[in-house]
Structure formats: C-alpha cells, structure tokens
C-alpha cells in the first residue's frame, strides 16, 4: 500500500514502555494530524516514522517498503521542525540545497530546483540571506522549502507553527492547506492545537498517554468523540459533562443529574434503551439551547468574544457553559432557561469513559 503504515509499533525507554502496539494506516495523499497534549507521545511517534528514534518493536512501512531499520535519509521523507532548525552558517540557498548536495546531485540541477521552490514559496529574494536575517515566518517558509525541494513521498511536520504569532500562524495554516491540495503528498503533522487539527487534517489521530484514542475525520472526532478524553480535548470551550440517568418524563426523556432534570429535545430513538442506567452526558456549549421550555438556571458569568458569548450557568447542581450569538447580552445573576439538544449529545460510560453509540 502507498502511504505510511504502522504495525504494532512499540516504544520503550530503558524498559519502560511508553507506546504499545500502535497501529495506523495513513493513505497516500492524506493530511494526517497527530493531536494530543504534551507528553502524549505524538512527537515520539513522528520521530519513529522519521527514523530519528528507533522503534522498540513493530514495523513501519512507507510506500509499501519496510523502513523500520533504515536511516532517516533512506526513508524518502522530509521533516519540518518547530524551531525551523535551519543551518545558521549557510545561506537560504544552501540550506534548501543541502539535502540534495548530500545526495550528490549536480550543482546546476540543485540550483534549478532551489529556484523553483523559491518561486513556489515566494522566498526568491531571500535566497542569499542568512537565516538570522529572516523573520520567524520567513524562516519557517525556508524550512518548508528545504522539505519540498527533496520531493519526498511523505512530509513530516513537528508543530511547525507553534513558534509563530497568532496572525502569522493563521496565514501559514492556509498556505499549508493550499500546498497540500496542490501537491497531494502525504503529510503527517504533529500539533497540540486543535484548530490546526480541525482545519488542516483529512484525518485526525488523537493520542493520550502513548495510545491512540481515536482516528477519524475531523468532523467525526468533533461530533462523535470515541471517549471522554477526546470529547474534552477537542473543542473550545470544552464540552460539558454531567453524571446522571436518562429518565422518562411523560412523553419526553430528561436527564436526571440527581439535583434536577435537564430536558432534552430530539433524542435519538436508541437512547430509550438506556433509560435508568448510570451515564455521563456530554454536551458541547453550542448544544445548550436557550428556550422558555427549558430548566431554570442562573447566569454566573457572560464572556463576550465578539462573534459569540460564552455563558456560564448554574443548573441542576452543575456548572455548564453555553455558547450563543452576541445579539442578546446576558447579565450575571439573571435567570435563563435551557435545554439540551439531544440529537447532538454524547453519552459515555461513567466507569471507563467510552462513548456509547446509539443504535
């Protein structure tokens, strides 16, 4: 198979296993984002694909070739680092051409390829400067150029935008997405930034404590999180969690937290089977609906963000966050009535946090 394949990849340091039996298939042309908090193992995984760190067990295939025991430069990959990692003593031109020179490509051919990449990334005028004379954004462009010029079958990005300021990050994000759409090459991209994951990825792999929590499209990771960890890690403000039970109340189904019954609307049919069981309900802030038919709650705080406002509410013994447009400002201390969009809620097993799929 083309693309990248990880089979039972394991990583241990001095006998301590940090990743066990990681299995991933990255299709040719995919933009795969490894998402997770610090220390979840995403960079380790990327380094193992790159060959910078040996895998303790398992096998790694790139384009159908077993590369588990190959050196990084034999794997047909290129990598872009958070710190850019440009060679400080070389000009931009030499930085980009260095990998080709190491491969023994003739000088005029290198010159031509560097010029092409310079045009593509619009860094032509910078080619004779030293990295220290460039801004952060320009340096990262050069680093991307250094990867592009090699024309590898897989690009690896290790938090490439984390050192840039917010505006530049947004611009570079767009450029990366364009670049991927244009070149159609496989990309494995590590980040802890869920916005980057959601906007760039064709597939997201959420990692925690050295294990894959969910591997799916960005939409599914957001809408149908596989467990509580994924649900709480993805999405800002974070998802609301309430422990309790589904209960029948007349014709309707409500969620009883023990301190109050939260009304649900549009509950899927399958949820009726779960009535009476202990559950954790997850509702994203935008799925708390302000409605006169809802349960009484008290506004603790309203945070206007511009396009939205986040409203912190005390309801049924819990504190929940709702998200609503800015048209009607909320005031602390006032009352509001809310209900939960049952069609978009998530339900988890309270013991292990696994999501319950409704039939």
């Amino acid at each position, binding site marked *: 198979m083309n693309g990248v394949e990880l089979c039972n990849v394991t990583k241990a340091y001095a006998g301590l296993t940090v990743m066990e039996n990681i299995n991933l298939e990255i299709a040719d042309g995919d933009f795969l984002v490894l998402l997770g908090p610090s220390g979840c193992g995403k960079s380790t995984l990327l380094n193992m694909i790159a060959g910078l760190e040996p895998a303790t067990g398992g096998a790694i295939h790139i384009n159908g070739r077993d590369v588990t025991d190959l050196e*990084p430069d034999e794997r047909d990959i290129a990598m872009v680092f958070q710190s850019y990692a440009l*060679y400080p003593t070389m000009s931009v031109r030499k930085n980009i051409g260095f990998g080709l020179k190491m491969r023994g490509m003739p000088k005029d051919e290198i010159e031509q390829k560097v010029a092409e990449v310079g045009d593509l990334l619009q860094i032509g005028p910078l080619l004779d400067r030293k990295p220290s004379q460039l801004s952060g954004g320009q340096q990262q462009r050069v680093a991307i150029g250094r990867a592009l010029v090699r024309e590898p079958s897989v690009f690896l990005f290790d938090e490439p935008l984390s050192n840039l300021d917010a505006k530049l990050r947004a611009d570079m994000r767009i450029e990366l997405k364009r670049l991927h759409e244009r070149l159609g090459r496989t990309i494995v991209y590590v980040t802890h930034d869920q916005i980057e994951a959601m906007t760039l990825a064709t597939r997201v792999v959420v990692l925690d404590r050295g294990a894959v929590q969910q591997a799916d499209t960005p939409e599914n990771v957001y809408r149908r999180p596989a467990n509580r960890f994924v649900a709480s890690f993805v999405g800002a403000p974070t998802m609301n969690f309430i422990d309790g039970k589904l209960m029948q109340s007349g014709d309707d189904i409500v969620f009883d937290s023990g301190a109050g019954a939260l009304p649900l609307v549009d509950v899927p049919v399958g949820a009726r089977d779960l009535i009476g069981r202990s559950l954790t309900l997850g509702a994203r802030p935008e799925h708390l609906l302000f409605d006169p038919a809802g349960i009484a709650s008290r506004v603790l705080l309203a945070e206007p963000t511009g396009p939205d406002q986040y409203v912190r509410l005390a309801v049924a013994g819990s504190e929940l966050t709702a998200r609503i447009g800015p048209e009607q400002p909320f005031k602390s201390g006032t009352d509001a009535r809310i209900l939960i969009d049952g069609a978009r809620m998530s339900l988890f097993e309270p013991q292990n946090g696994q999501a319950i799929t409704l039939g």
Partner: protein
Amino acid sequence: MQYNRLALYGLLGIAALMVLSPVFIMVSTSLKSMDEIRNGSIFTLPADPGFAAWGKAWFGDCAKTLGDKCGGLSSSFLTSVKIVIPALALSVGLGAITGYALAVWKMKGANLMFAALLVGMFIPPQVTLYPLIIMIRELGIFGSIGGLILVHVIWGIAFTTMMFRNFFKTVPQDLLKAARIDGAGFWRLFWHVMLPLSLPILGVAMILQFTYIWNDFLLGLTFGGRSGQPMTVALNNLVGSQFGEKEYNVDMAATMLTALPTLAVYLLSGRLFVRGIAAGAVKG
C-alpha cells in the same frame, strides 16, 4: 557617585601601572646601551635609544660564543614555529573531532571517557613527566621535534576536547535531526554544519593552544633534545650562560622577542577571543 568614579579609576590606574611597569622597564632597558644601564636608574628613559641589543639578541654575538653558533634566538624561533604549527593544528583539529563525537553521537562510555579527559586536564604535567619520557623513548622519538609535538598534542587534546564538547552540547537537537534527515553522516555533519558553527570556539582554542605551546618551557626542555629546543629554552640559555658582564639590554630584548608572537596573537585576535569566551566556550 563622583568619588566612586574617582576610586574606581584610581584603582584601575594602579593596577595598570603594576602590570605595565615591568614591561616599561624591559622595553626601555632593551633600548639602552650597557654604559647607560651601569650608570643610571632602571626607571629613566633611554637617553639615546637604539636597537643594537635587539640585533644581538636575535642574531647572537659571534665574538663571544665558542664554536660555530653565535647564540642568537633566530634559529630557535624557527624551531618554535616548527613545533607550534603542527602541534596547534593537531591538538585543535583532533579536539574538535573528539569533542564533536562526545557531544553529538551517543556512544557507550562517552561520559566515562569525558570524565577521564577532565581528570587528565587537572593532573599537573610534572606528575606524568617521567612516564611520558619512557613512552616517547619507546616510540623512538625522544629528543626530537616530533616527540615534543606528540607530547604537546597529548597535553592539549584534553583541553580542546572539553572546549569543543561543551560548545557542541549547546547545538539544538532539531538541527542535528534536520542534518540526519538531509543525509549528513558523521563526517559531513561535522564538516558542513558543526565546524562552521564552532568558528568562535575554534579561534579561542587556537589562541589558547598557541599560547600554551609557545610559552612552554618544561616540555621543551625535557623532550626537545638539542635539535628541538624551543625559543623559551634558548632564552633561558642565553640569559643564564653568558661570559663576563651581564648584558641586561640583550636579555631584555631577547625576552621581548620571545614574548612578541603571543602578544601579537592576542592583539590581533582580541575581539574574536572575547566573543568566543562570551559564547560559552570556557564554561563547565
């Protein structure tokens, strides 16, 4: 504030005076004639400055010495150059490579090796002198320039390795990873990436090693033999073994001549030197 300033400059002035007055005495005495030295104070300026004594120190005084040699420093200057250039190149070059290997490539026992090198640095040369003599003798190069060079390299390499190792330890990991992905192995990473990065350290290491080797007396005296006597040893012979009246002006001129190369190196490379030290070269 004013008084603090005054005190500060006063102290600095005194310190400068203490350091510079011997230099002044040396220069002024070397420019005097023997008559003037006999009759005047050492602090007076030369009445009729001349370079006769310098000439004598450099070329020797053939009327005074026995045999075919005239006893000047010129020939031992050449010997010193012949010792310094290879010893400098080898000790700095090898130190750069070993320092790089210790800092960048994870080898078994690298830390132990480095610790051993550090210990080696702190052992006084006198302690190892005799074992070294035996080693060099066994190699059959005792009493030659080659033997002396080898001893200097052995002594210098611990120091240069430490300097380079500490510098290369500060190079970011990502840079090394990028080079590995670009396909640079041990030597190409060293040559294309690490060595150009280490230019300030290279400069400092060369200056310090030059100074050590040029100023060395003990090793030169012990290992050089007759053919390999460096300038410092020749200076000692010149000052200590003249017949008749002591020629202070020639002695002073000879001493100045011997010290001049190191002085020149410091003056020419002063800025580089400070930059290298500021870059964290001599920490740890």
